[in-house]
């Protein structure tokens, strides 16, 4: 089966600044695919090249197997939900939603019906005749979504559509978007710098930084098997500890921690020498001293659902541990000597 979108070693240069360095991605049909990365890493640029607003400096973009370099934005079967919505201010909500259908030559009656259905889908039927300026941010966002979905594009591009909303609305919209994607079967390419958003909605995620794709995978892959320091650090919280690798084979490595303790871990690194080890704080448990990694508790921070415990390993490395604030746990106090137990999947050896 051909991919919905195929990006082949795409480079984008603005003047003397290279915004994207040979990016390659394959996005499957019906997929909810997310481009995740910090501000300025080139997410919008990549999206704008797919939509046709930005020329590709080098490389090519295929849409269902067809090279789209020569197509103008209005000839691409791709619609965009813009970051700032970009609703047409001189048209009512329903006219905004029907605009794409009008351009495609649908007769008035048909496009009325369709636009009405779209507004119903985003729960805005009562607002059809309002001007966009009379809607709240969340409502405008949904109009933008309905407008982009109305012509049934093959691929929908969404550029941080939730970033202007408050937390509650954002969480509700995540679910709605996800549901909409599975109902319509349209390929969604979603841009965000919010890792939680990416993890909760996506089938697959491409983590980007400074114009490079760092890792592509399912949310679970990205979170549990990060390849490098950037990904491990950007997604969730982690402890990064510099370690000595003694042996590495078949994605497993034996490493020596600063205190001299040896552990075996899954590995993205392929060579021996000094590498970074990522240890997820919520996969570590505290036990009695003498068993596992020896450490001393330095501080306990109460977070409501969790307790954050700051410890110092023998050898002097600081680490944080997350304990679920369940009824049965014994809360450690500063000065306690403890033994740390790394659960399955807690540690991952990184390639850098």
């Amino acid at each position, binding site marked *: 089966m051909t991919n919905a979108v195929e990006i082949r070693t795409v480079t984008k240069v603005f003047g003397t600044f290279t915004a994207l360095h040979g990016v390659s991605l394959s996005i499957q049909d019906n997929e909810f695919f997310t481009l995740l990365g910090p501000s300025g890493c080139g997410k919008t640029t990549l999206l704008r090249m797919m*939509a*046709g*607003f930005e020329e590709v400096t080098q490389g090519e973009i295929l849409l269902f197997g067809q090279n789209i370099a020569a197509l*103008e*934005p*209005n*000839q691409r079967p*791709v*619609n*965009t939900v*813009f970051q*700032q919505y*970009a*609703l*047409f*201010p*001189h048209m009512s909500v329903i006219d905004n939603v029907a*605009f*794409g259908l009008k*351009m*495609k030559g649908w007769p008035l009656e048909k496009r009325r019906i369709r636009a009405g259905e779209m507004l119903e889908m985003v729960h805005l039927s009562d607002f059809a*005749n*309002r*001007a966009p300026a*009379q809607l709240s941010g969340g409502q405008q966002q949904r109009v933008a979504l309905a*407008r*982009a979905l109305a*012509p049934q594009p093959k691929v929908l591009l969404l550029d941080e559509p939730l970033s202007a909303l408050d937390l509650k609305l954002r969480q509700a919209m995540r679910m709605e978007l996800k549901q909409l994607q599975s109902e319509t079967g349209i390929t969604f390419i979603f841009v965000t710098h919010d890792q939680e958003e990416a993890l909760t909605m996506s089938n697959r995620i491409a983590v980007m930084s400074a114009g490079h794709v760092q890792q592509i995978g399912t949310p679970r892959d990205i979170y549990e098997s990060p390849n490098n320091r950037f990904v491990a650090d950007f997604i969730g919280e982690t402890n990064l500890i510099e370690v000595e690798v003694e042996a590495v084979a078949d994605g497993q490595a034996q490493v020596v921690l600063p205190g001299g303790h040896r552990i075996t871990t899954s590995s993205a690194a392929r060579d021996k020498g000094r590498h970074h080890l990522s240890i997820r704080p919520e996969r570590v448990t505290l036990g009695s001293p003498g068993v596992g990694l020896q450490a001393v508790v330095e501080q306990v921070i109460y977070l409501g659902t969790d307790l954050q415990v700051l410890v110092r390993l023998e050898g002097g490395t600081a680490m944080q541990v997350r304990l679920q604030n369940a009824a049965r746990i014994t809360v450690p106090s500063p000065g306690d000597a403890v033994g740390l137990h790394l659960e399955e999947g807690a540690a991952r050896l990184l390639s850098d």
Partner: protein
Amino acid sequence: MAGPATDSGSSAESTYRSARIPLLVPTWVMIGVFLVLPVALMAVYSFLTKEMRGGVIWEFSLAAYDQFFVNRGLFGDEPASLEWTYINVFARSIAQAGIATVLCLLIGFPTAWFIATRPPETRGVWLFLITVPYWVNLLIRTVSLRFLIRENGPLNDALMGAGVISQPLALINTDFAVQLGLFYSYLPFMVLPVYAAVERYNFTWSEAAADLYASRWVVLREIVLPIVKPGIIAGCLLVFIPSLGAFLAPNLLGGAKSFMIGSLIDEQFKKSLGNWPFGAAVSMILMSLVLILLLLYARSTARQERP
């Protein structure tokens, strides 16, 4: 909860109102002295009797309006019919002003677009350049234009020298020369309001429309023009209205047939052959016409701002 809030709101409002009155005095004085008074004076003059060597006799008379609208033949003894002479002058003036406005729009819109799409740092320089020629007095600019386009003027010399034409173009003393003069006089009045509208235009709207399958031309027609329309209308009014009453361009650049309303009024107030009440009446009729135009404009924008 709502009660006190409304109370304090309305008392703040009334303090604000009473503080506003002294601040508004200069404005009212300005409007009174420079707008209401002259117009009232003209209105009164238009109903007075003319003095033979200019000026007025303080005696009520409808002669001025009668002269404008009613034809009683050369000796005033024929049955009354509609007088076309001055209506024709109005019609010609409207046509001239209309053509000048269209010229200003055709050149002014792309110019304003160009400036508004430059980087913000350089926009000021472009706007400045647009206004530089207007530091020179309008009379002098119009005379220069006359010099420029006359039969043996630099324009014809250059065109003949370059071999584009073999005979000098008869530009001077034509309607076209008048249109050119009006265009040149009032171009910035088109560029500036259109610029202000285009500058506020968000180009993501064009991208959104293109994304929804609109071609470039359709984007212009369906998105850009409707959104910047208030600026275009303001520019057209600012060019059309002064063009309608202009007298320098028709007097200095036009021929005998290019006579416009401004020239007609101008003539009535010249010392010996003038007719002040008639000049005042023509001014009042011109002003009513302009007022009607402005009311139509106000209505069209009011409709646009409604949800």
